């Protein structure tokens, strides 16, 4: 197997506000977009010819991945103009694939060992994985390494073995994907017509993001596996405990306390007297002012956080400006997405480019749209659309 097709055209609509400006594959987990984990895993398994099917906000992928040279792979871009489904996306790549190829989603985080065995399997094949909550996926019935049946999103799943959306195909697959919109439907047609589909189970990492707060749990898993490095300037009196990675040109000012796993990007200005606690990822060009505590959170590029803030279990996207004494503490909350209620434990989910005045307090479970503005001394709660003005 020498080639892979990565499907990265989709938005991930349930992940708004974070996907209003970027595709799901470009969500940042522990300092890198999900797509980069997928590409790295392929490269490490010797697959360096990659067809990337892009669509929604494809420029974000072009800007980051480019020709692929810096990741050691060659990328061919194919555009899916309308995001109609995975089979439709794959069909767009017809004509540029070799005879055998892998198919993966750019929106599921994997690691090299996840597919190490699978790349040797004979097509057509599907990679399976046991998960705790299979009802959102295609549940597989497997007998002696061969797929018997795929039940899409069953109300009462027969097992907890699901389809990861990672496949090994030959060009035969296009006969089945062309008339369908989704790959599982194409596979079921194959099964009905008597074509065998092999299955292999992996115990490697395979993580999906369905809702905004899933970013935190993925980050928690992946940030534990970063490589420690201390770039930039670490002033005297800074305590660094555990696994910590600090990027180049970042300044960590006196008396700051960093307890890993923590990853901090390039060109940040942090402290003095800042406390960054486990499972936190901080992007590039971020400023964190004195006496702020950040815990189990993901902070995007160009964010500016004022003095005396408490930020827990939160995701703060690119370019937010937060003045002093912002309080976003984690806690139980009920959040409504697409008419479904979810009981979650989280702080806030803050979209891109928001601006918060001094002493804003956020109730647990706030999801605030991109480019929103909040005046000083406001209490915010619930779900707020893009460009909300809270005065």
């Amino acid at each position: 197997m020498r080639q892979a097709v990565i499907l990265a055209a989709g938005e991930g609509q349930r992940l708004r506000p974070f996907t209003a400006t970027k595709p799901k594959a470009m969500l940042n987990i522990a300092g890198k977009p999900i797509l980069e984990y997928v590409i790295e895993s392929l490269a490490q398994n010797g697959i360096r010819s990659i067809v990337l099917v892009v669509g929604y906000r494809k420029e974000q992928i072009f800007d980051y991945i480019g020709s692929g040279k810096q990741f050691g792979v060659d990328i061919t871009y194919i555009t899916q103009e309308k995001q109609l489904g995975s089979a439709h996306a794959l069909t767009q790549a017809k004509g540029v694939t070799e005879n055998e190829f892998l198919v993966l989603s750019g929106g599921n985080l994997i690691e090299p060992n996840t597919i190490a065995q699978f790349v040797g399997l004979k097509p057509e094949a599907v990679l399976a994985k046991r998960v705790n909550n299979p009802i959102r996926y295609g549940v597989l019935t497997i007998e002696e390494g061969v797929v018997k049946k795929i039940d899409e999103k069953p109300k009462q799943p027969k097992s907890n073995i699901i389809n990861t959306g990672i496949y090994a195909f030959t060009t035969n697959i296009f006969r089945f994907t062309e008339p369908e919109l989704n790959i599982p439907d194409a596979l079921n047609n194959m099964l009905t017509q008597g074509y065998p589909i092999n299955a292999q189970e992996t115990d490697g990492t395979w993580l999906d993001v369905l809702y905004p707060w899933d970013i935190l749990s993925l980050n928690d898993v992946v940030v534990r596996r970063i490589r420690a490095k201390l770039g930039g300037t670490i002033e005297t009196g800074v305590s660094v405990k555990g696994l910590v990675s600090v990027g180049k040109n970042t300044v960590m000012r006196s008396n700051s306390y960093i307890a890993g796993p923590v990853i901090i990007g390039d060109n940040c200005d942090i402290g003095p007297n800042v406390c960054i606690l486990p499972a936190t990822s901080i992007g590039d060009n971020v400023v964190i002012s004195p006496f702020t505590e950040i815990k189990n959170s993901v902070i995007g590029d160009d964010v500016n956080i004022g003095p005396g803030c408490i930020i827990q279990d939160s995701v703060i996207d690119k370019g937010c400006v937060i003045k002093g004494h912002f309080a976003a503490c984690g806690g139980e909350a009920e959040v409504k997405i697409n008419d479904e209620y979810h009981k979650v434990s989280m702080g806030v989910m803050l979209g891109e480019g928001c601006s918060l005045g001094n002493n804003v307090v956020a109730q647990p479970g706030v999801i605030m749209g991109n480019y929103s503005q909040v005046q000083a001394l406001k209490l915010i709660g619930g779900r707020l659309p893009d460009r909300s003005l809270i005065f």
Partner: protein
Amino acid sequence: MCGIIGYIGERQAHPILLGCLKRLEYRGYDSCGIAIAGNSINVYKNTVRAEELRKAAPQLDGTLGIGHTRWATHGQPSQANAHPHCDCDGKIAVVHNGIITNFQGLKQKLIHEGHKFISETDTEIIPHLIEKYYRGDLERAVEAALDDIEGSYAIIVLMASEDKLVAARKDSPLIIGLGDRENFIASDVPAILDYTNRVIYLEEGDMGVVTKDNIKIRRDGIEINREEHKISWSVDEAQRGGYEHFMLKEIHEQPRVIRDTLVGRVSVAEPTVDLAAMRDKGIESMLILACGTSYHAALTGKYIIEELLRIPVRVELASEFICYGQTLTGTEAIVITQSGETADILRAMRRLKEVGCQVLAITNVVGSTASRIADQTIYTRAGPEISVAATKSFMAQLMVLYWLIMSYSKVDSRRLASMLLALRQMPSKVQQVLNNGYKILEHANNLSGYDNVFFIARGINFPIALEGALKLKEISYIHAEGYAAGELKHGPFALLRSDTPVIAIVAQDNTYEAMLTNIREIKARSSPVIALAEEGDEVIGGLVDSVITVPQVDAIFSPVVNTVALQLLAYYTAKQRGCPIDFPRNLAKSVTVE
């Protein structure tokens, strides 16, 4: 403006030369050609671009050759005028970038001596001069020929039966690339990055003699050493990476370019470049020189300096500055040049140095001629720019100016802190404009049907109106003019009709009310008006036909977001009109001739 390349080694020269020429096309592309030395010299050239030449050319056998992609200065683009040029016997071939000013006289003399000329070019005299002086030592002959020549040149000479290339430069760039049992000579680094990242920059007046495993550099007949540089960037950055055009790719790179250009610079506003005069006694005035798009960055710089430093600034076009005499004393001068090779800039710099000016260069090309003439250089970290229309390099120039001036600014610390915060937010604000590209596309589709467009603004955005008009005209071929809004009534009003759209930049600063008045005047002449206005401006929508919104920023940084919006507008307009966006007709990337 031309690009030249030479190869000597063990591989077939033909495909390597054509590959390198393709990367040099930004320097000109009206014709190209190659010469390969086997037992004799075989030349193949035509009025086509490298890709077509690759398809059309017969396979020329040999491991030693030269190539050229041309930008016509003397003589029409034609097969005869394309390089390489040869001597009478076809034994010596030369490629040349530059202009020989005394070629008419030399040509008459050579014709009188019996030499036969085929082309109208200045270059052709070089192989004939070398032929004239050749007595068995090619280097001597080249030196003698160059002694006769006045003007600028970077040349590579190839001679049948000689297993080497001879190269020389004066006022035109030239580098040597060091490979493993092979070596390269090229106008610039990206041309050869597919093959090697070790280069030697030739200096003014250097002559290089290159064989497949040896480099000799001579100056005034004496052998000297030149330092080897390792290039850290890759050709990757010079590829399109998914985008249809380099221009759109480079527009989208701007958030990263801003971050890169400001890396390590904006933490605290402490000066890292030592403008000696400013430090010691404070200076009374400043001179900024530039050409083209860089001139618009310079004009923006004038507004920033006058606001933050409170000193008068004079901005001059380098091409004008070199034409007439002014009184200059030892003032501080800044020159802004993307390539660092713009001929007018280099001449102006030499003149400034002669009268004792301190010259600070802002350029994108490490090791460029400008950086070597200047007392100090600040590099914009934009990476190589391929599209002829400058976008990210302009942005990087603006960022350097902001940062440089802020580090010397005399404003109070509260204002400075808020500006530093705003500067750090620029990558995100620019990304916000880019994310809005789909909406700008609609405005562009509408604009593409017109033949004349005016761009107006006041204050710090006036240079951005000029830049917006320049971008539109150079890539979409729509006639566009940038005007200070207050000047419209002194003439251009006569041109305003319902088919003359006006694009008005409306910033939230002290020009706002005046701009609204100007827009009302224009609407009274029934011209369609497109406004560039900040998000949250409730008034503007009622006055104009359509609004392109840009994110709210501190007014002093409004040029940044407005520039990006106008770049996208120009790009999509040109695309709608089906123009060859990356290589507009009659234009070359940097102008290395006067």
